[in-house]
């Protein structure tokens, strides 16, 4: 009986050790997740040594055999959080009013196509947002902080890709009976 009891006790002891180990692992995982959260980049484009955006050429660069002008890359590349925020800013700053709810076009051209009149690289799109364009695109660079413009660029570049947040869906068409 005593043996039986001690067996029982050691059994529960094992179980407890196991559960402790499990708890430790969960804790470690949580810590790791927290740390991962801490690792989130706080990017300040201006302080990252990106060249001033006004030097982005829209036309060919004279005297150069191929167009190899260095273009600043989007500091938020691959940042899912920034992509979501880009989508929010797109609506908030009334971009969607002109360029369509999901960039399909309107008063301003569609952003869902590959064709961009002033270049489709991230730097070119940044420049178009920041400086404005001749047919009425406002120059947002004087108002919107650089980081937010890069988030918008990230969103625009994601259109029609699997990464696009909140992609457009054809409207549900309910059965409509005329009101009596």
């Amino acid at each position, binding site marked *: 009986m005593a043996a039986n009891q001690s067996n029982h006790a050691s059994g529960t002891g094992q179980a407890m050790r196991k559960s402790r180990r499990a708890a430790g692992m969960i804790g470690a995982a949580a810590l790791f997740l927290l740390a991962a959260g801490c690792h989130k980049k706080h990017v300040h484009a201006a302080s990252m040594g990106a060249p001033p955006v006004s030097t982005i050429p829209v036309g060919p660069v004279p005297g150069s055999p191929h167009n190899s002008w260095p273009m600043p890359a989007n500091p938020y590349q691959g940042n899912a959080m920034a992509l979501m925020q880009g989508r929010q800013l797109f609506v908030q700053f009334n971009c969607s009013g002109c360029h369509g709810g999901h960039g*399909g076009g309107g008063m301003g051209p569609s952003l869902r196509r590959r064709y961009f009149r002033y270049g489709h690289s991230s730097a070119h799109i940044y420049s178009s947002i920041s400086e404005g364009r001749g047919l009425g695109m406002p120059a947002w660079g004087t108002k919107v902080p650089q980081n937010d413009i890069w988030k918008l660029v990230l969103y625009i570049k994601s259109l029609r890709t699997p990464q696009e947040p909140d992609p457009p869906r054809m*409207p549900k068409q309910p059965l409509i009976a*005329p009101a009596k």
Partner: protein
Amino acid sequence: MGPNLRKFHGLQAMAHQPQTDAARKVLLPGGLLQFVPRLMVGVGLAAISLLSQQSRQGVMPAPGQLSTIHLVSPVPNGNWTLPAGDYANTRYSPLNQINTKDVSHLRVIATFSDGIPHGQEGQPLVVHNTLYMVTPFPNNLIALDLTKPGFPLKWIYQPHPNRQAVARACCDTVNRGASYSHGLVVYCTLDDHVVAVNANTGKLAWSTRVGNIYRGETITMAPLVVHGIVIAGDSGGEFGVHGKITALALKTGKVLWRAFSTGSDKQVRIGQNFHAYYAKDQGKNLGKTSWPADAWKIGGGTVWGWISYDPELNLIFYGTGNPSPWDQQMRPGSNHWTCSIFARNPETGYAKWAYQMVPHDAWDYDEIMENIAIDMRWHGRMRKLLLHPARNGFMFVMDRRNGQVLSAQKFVSSVNWASAYNLKTGRPVVNTLKVAPQGKFAQGICPSSTGGKEFVPSAFSPVTGYLYIPAHNTCMNRKESEASYIAGTPYLGSSTAMYPGPGGYQGELIAWDVRHARPVWSIKDKLLPVYSGVLATGGNLVFYGTLEGWFRAVNARTGQVLWQFKTGSGIIGDPITFLGPHGKQYVAIYSGIGGWMGAVAQPSFSTDDPYAGLGAAGAMTAIKKISEPGDTLYIFAL
């Protein structure tokens, strides 16, 4: 402006002898016309129709006209000098050389391309054997010489408007035409200038800026000239502008008065003589008190449609556009005087009456539609009527002396935002399920924001008594969210996606029997809405175009398509008819797809986003495979 022209009108009222002499007698004292028409021979009634419009002694009935109908202003009988042809906006011409019997022989006589890949709305003018066409942005004025074979270019006037205006035009960079008066062609440019051009030489007479594109104001509408006063509205209801109409002196371009659509009674020009018929429209400073604090300043109510005029009552009639922003929750209140009809004295600008058609609009039902003034027997007695086929899908018949609604019937059967209008209170019986709340879609709202009918004007034939309505059958889902007002950018707060309405068709030309308030016949378009204006003629014909590009002549009584011609692009213009040299009848139409819904055909739209183009893309996915943009004027004759 005053005395000089008044004298001039007095003279004109006396001058009842036939055309040419009368024209000279009248023109010379006024001293306004710098030219003597070169080819007045054989122009028939051209000059008299142009010059006797102010005659208060009644108007000659059109041949074959129903005895129960009385025309208020002379119908265009040779020339086409006003956007709708006449002041009353009937778009009816008694010309009958082209008629049901010979229309099958109609053929193209000349075409003219302006090379612009944007929508060509509106209609040309024809005065003294010259055809004037206003192009979409950059708003060039082109004069064609109708006396020479092929109708060659006579001159071109280029106003060079500010290019920044392009992105502030909500629904393509269109222009809806010009008005002619006293030797001047007057029209508006997209960058808010009203310009007057010498009709003979093509030289600018004056140019006045009446708005600011950096606040989102543009002009696309066709101004109307009444008694030497130019009346011009504005666009920008999607940008939170302060909607208004401006009156300018025809001679000098000086601003005479301005009447806003929102604000205090002083700003709206509501004075002592104002009397609204319905209690809901009575009260002091409604344009201010029916809005949350300061919201009326950015409340829209633009005037971008058609203005009509009744010379007998000396009143102009026009409608105002949607309130800004689209998100209705941000602007509690009835939002006077958006989506309303105004009757004003053209000289003073003071309102006689007003009626708000859609109180607290939640669907973008601009009521800038044409207001057709006719006198007609209505329930036993002659009444002064105003016909208004509304964007909200109801056909309004009103008493234009006081703004009483006599009848409001659905002309599109799918309409469900309201079940009916209460004629005692003037209020619609709104289905609250179709008012989109914030953050949640209201589904199946009919009609969509583009309406049961867009701005494209209908035509009224005094011979059949029918109104020919270019109608839509489009519904939408809509969700609202808060909108930020940022001057010069859209002020919407709404996600709208449209789609074809029930019944398997999206467009319809309806012949509407005004007296019995019912449709007589209709021609349905399966894929696309009908987006062109309509013309009715004394040849018992109705002309209209489709977004596919077909230009059609239809039997006005039966709706049978008698002739059709495929033009180069979708048609969103309004047909006109006129007499050329030697008294020959012509029909002209613009072809060139664009406008709110048509612009989806342009390469700058992607149809995989149904929310593109303010939601129009969802209903227009088919158009990419049907039509390409590019403007051409087509002129047809037998």
